[in-house]
């Protein structure tokens, strides 16, 4: 990795390894993931289910069930603390305080028996010593900020009185309540309809402009982050396989997996492809730690080194890292292979 201007980095994650002990054996969920999130940046984390994107995020803030989960190695520096080593009380100050969360399903992540107002002020009262009246005032402002009409009146409503999109807005308001420096959004629009998704994406753009926090946006949908992220990191089977500035990643993907994923999406314009390009096979089961490239069995470019050693993430051009032995552009093996 390039040397970082530490002042500019909000979160610095280094070589996180997370495993799960199950009756069938050890699941190698996250296999040495490193990344930085810069101030005000939106980092997209893309991958299919089981690729370790959520487990990585949960490892950082220790929201994993442990056991069966186990963070074997790694560090994650945030505001001078190593989150992985931090004790529970430090973590509790950070979680919901300077790191906010938005989860996928707004129905199950809100408590159905508490009013929205209560859930909105909970974090405020825990993290900032504010009076009840001040907290309610702030809660109303937050609901207003996320575009809920009649914010003040709606504080006394329960989650079931809100629609799915509105509930996700409430979740965003909660995540924003303590002015986080970092927002971790895990598939925040996956459970929503496209017109509602468009509303939420617009909201995030506005909120980001106004508040300027860094955001990690986890999704399985490459097209959602295309218009949102500054940088995108693609994960496969617990590894980061490619990371680049958003333009570079979409216009010239350098990992066969990224490239195949992009090509498997049907087009919205132009001639309809006669057949979709599909990636045959399925992701590995992760019970074995791979000593070869985990994508090799499904890869159209796989050649001899791919089956014997796992490529490391390396810079191949400015702002573009990839973990692959094959240079797709020049159609030759990389020097390191």
């Amino acid at each position, binding site marked *: 990795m390039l040397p970082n201007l530490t002042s500019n980095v909000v979160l610095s994650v280094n070589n996180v390894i997370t495993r799960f002990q199950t009756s069938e054996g050890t699941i190698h969920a996250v296999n040495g993931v490193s990344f930085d999130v810069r101030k005000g940046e939106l980092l997209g984390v893309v991958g*299919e*289910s089981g690729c370790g994107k959520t487990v990585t995020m949960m490892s950082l803030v220790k929201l994993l069930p442990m056991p069966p989960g186990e963070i074997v190695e790694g560090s994650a520096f945030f505001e001078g603390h190593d989150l992985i080593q931090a004790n529970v009380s430090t973590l509790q100050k950070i979680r919901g305080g300077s790191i906010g969360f938005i989860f996928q399903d707004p129905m199950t992540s809100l408590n159905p028996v508490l009013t929205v107002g209560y859930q909105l002020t909970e974090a405020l009262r825990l993290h900032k010593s504010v009076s009840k009246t001040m907290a309610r005032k702030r809660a109303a402002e937050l609901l207003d900020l996320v575009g809920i009409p009649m914010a003040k009146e709606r504080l006394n409503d329960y989650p079931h009185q809100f*629609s*799915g*999109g*509105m509930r996700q807005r409430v979740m965003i308001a909660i995540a924003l309540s303590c002015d986080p420096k970092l927002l971790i959004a895990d598939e925040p629009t996956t459970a929503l*309809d*496209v*017109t*509602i*998704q*468009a*509303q939420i*994406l*617009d909201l995030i753009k506005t909120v980001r402009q106004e508040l300027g926090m860094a955001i990690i946006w986890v999704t*399985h*949908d*490459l*097209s*959602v982050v*295309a*218009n949102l992220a500054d940088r995108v990191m693609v994960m496969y089977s617990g590894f980061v396989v490619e990371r680049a500035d*958003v*333009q570079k990643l*979409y*216009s010239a993907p350098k990992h066969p997996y990224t490239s*195949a*994923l*992009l090509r*498997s*999406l*049907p*087009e*919205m314009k132009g001639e*309809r*492809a006669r*057949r*979709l*390009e*599909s*990636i*045959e096979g*399925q992701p590995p089961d992760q019970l074995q730690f791979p000593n070869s490239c985990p994508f090799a069995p499904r890869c159209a470019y796989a050649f001899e080194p791919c089956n014997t050693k796992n490529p490391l993430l390396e810079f191949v051009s400015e702002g573009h890292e990839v973990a692959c032995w094959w240079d797709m552009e020049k159609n030759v093996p990389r020097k390191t292979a």
Partner: protein
Amino acid sequence: MSMMNISLSADPLLTIKNVKQYFPVTAGFLRRQIGTVKAVNGVDFNILPQENLGLVGESGCGKTTLARTILRLYKPTEGEILFKNVDLATLNSSALRALRPKMQMIFQDPQDSLNPRMTVGSIIAEPIDEHRNLGREERSDRVEELLEAVGLDPRYTNRYPHEFSGGQRQRIGIARALSLNPEFIICDEPIAALDVSIQAQVVNLLEDLQEKLGLTYLFISHDLRMIRHISKRVAVMYLGKIVEIGPARELYTRAQHPYTKALLSAVPLHDPGHEAKRERAVLSGDVPSPANPPTGCPFRMRCPVVETRCAISMPEPREVSPNHWASCHLIE
């Protein structure tokens, strides 16, 4: 009333006319009816043999209810469902049973739609046991043939659903739907629960099967991009009604209804450069409750170009170009 039909170059396999499906809303100890959910509120269209009609709409618009009504899993409140010129809406149960093998459904969630306690072989053979009288040998031959047709190893017959991945389970669901040689299959969000890299595999399989077996599909999805790929003709549903229907190319390039336009502009593109330049019409608000739909045009509460007349009457469908129909007052 004009019909949102394709002009007939062949006899349609399925014609539905003014289909309505209402559900009562009850309350209290005596289950008194206090209202009606108008899940499907007057839908017309037809599907030609070997056609693939895409049905798009957001959750709660009535897509799945319409699918279930067409297959007579619900008894329609009103309307006609002509399948090969037989009206399913009024058919008695024995006559309906005789027709069932011709119409099948593939469900969204391959996890929930397969019985975890049955082997793959018995899941696929269940419709055969129910409708045909095959000997043991013939039955197992048929199961193996079906497994092969959907790209699974025929040796898997004695395995259980949990031993398969999501994509493979969806293939099992497809094999079951094919077991009685149907002519018409409703695919209800068949890829929504699958990973991106697996979606293309399943869509390709469905397309191959359609070509090989001459199937007719009603393909329900909220994924407008996939619908554009798989369907030649597309219907857009909003609050229990079809608001626009037409050939896919035409509908995607010259959408007439403001809802269709908004839906299309909400689809995120995987092209950061183009995305930044695109003009997007983001709809405000949510879909109104079908228990209390607005008067007049169902879309008027969210419509960016709404006028006073939209509240007064429901717009009639108009044919804006050959086989392209849209229901909006603003279309001249």
